[in-house]
């Protein structure tokens, strides 16, 4: 059962107010992760205070780095169920967890940050993992 909107809205806005595209349907996820769309970063948001409270600020910190993906999007686990299910399908063999984050190139997942690498860690540490992934997978070839 989804949480009340008034509880979830601030957690959505923490990302959407900072330029992260909300994906609320399977079609939106598929379009966002189209093979010709370059690099795409998807944040699987969640209500869980144990981990998501560090995930959101960690992701936002990472988005201030020099190298970032072409597209930044988010689905909300437990709320936008169709979009979340499709995003997880696109992560193929990776077990579902939330919060979590995935980086795609040409529609294929190239990096994944599972929940256990988020929970209990401070936003700066989480951001460092994400920035390293951006630099490995999203930097221009001539950089």
């Amino acid at each position, binding site marked *: 059962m989804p949480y009340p909107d008034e509880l979830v809205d601030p957690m959505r806005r923490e990302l959407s107010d900072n330029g992260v595209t909300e994906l609320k349907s399977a079609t939106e996820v598929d379009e966002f992760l189209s093979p010709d769309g370059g690099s795409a970063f998807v944040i699987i948001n969640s209500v*869980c*205070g*144990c*981990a998501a*409270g*560090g995930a959101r600020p960690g992701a936002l910190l990472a988005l201030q780095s020099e190298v970032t993906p072409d597209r930044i999007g988010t689905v909300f686990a437990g709320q936008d169920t169709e979009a979340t299910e499709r995003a997880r399908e696109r992560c193929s*063999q*990776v*077990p*579902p*967890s939330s919060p*979590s984050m995935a980086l795609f190139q040409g529609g294929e997942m190239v990096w*994944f940050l*599972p*929940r*256990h*690498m988020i*929970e*209990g*860690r*401070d936003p700066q540490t989480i951001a460092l993992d994400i920035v390293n992934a951006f630099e490995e997978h999203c930097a221009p070839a001539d950089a």
Partner: protein
Amino acid sequence: MGTFHDDMGELHGITVVVSQHDGCTWIGRCHSEDDVEVILHDADQHDPAKSDENAEQWLQRARRFGHWPRVSTIRIPRPGVSSLVRLAQISAG
């Protein structure tokens, strides 16, 4: 840094690896742990007698991508536990 439920112990909400003296290993989200038992949610078990891969291979896969939540809740008697660590602390193989 633990979770925001300080009254539940530092491992509450954290994904942990529980190794047992019988050779079996559990991964799950820790609810609580004391001298009596370790309680995990959304857990998965590696049993060397039933798996084609060894415990180290299974742990390395979980360390990289996470684990499958096959068991909703499991209570593991503490006397059978040989170690309890965070999954995030498992070294890359």
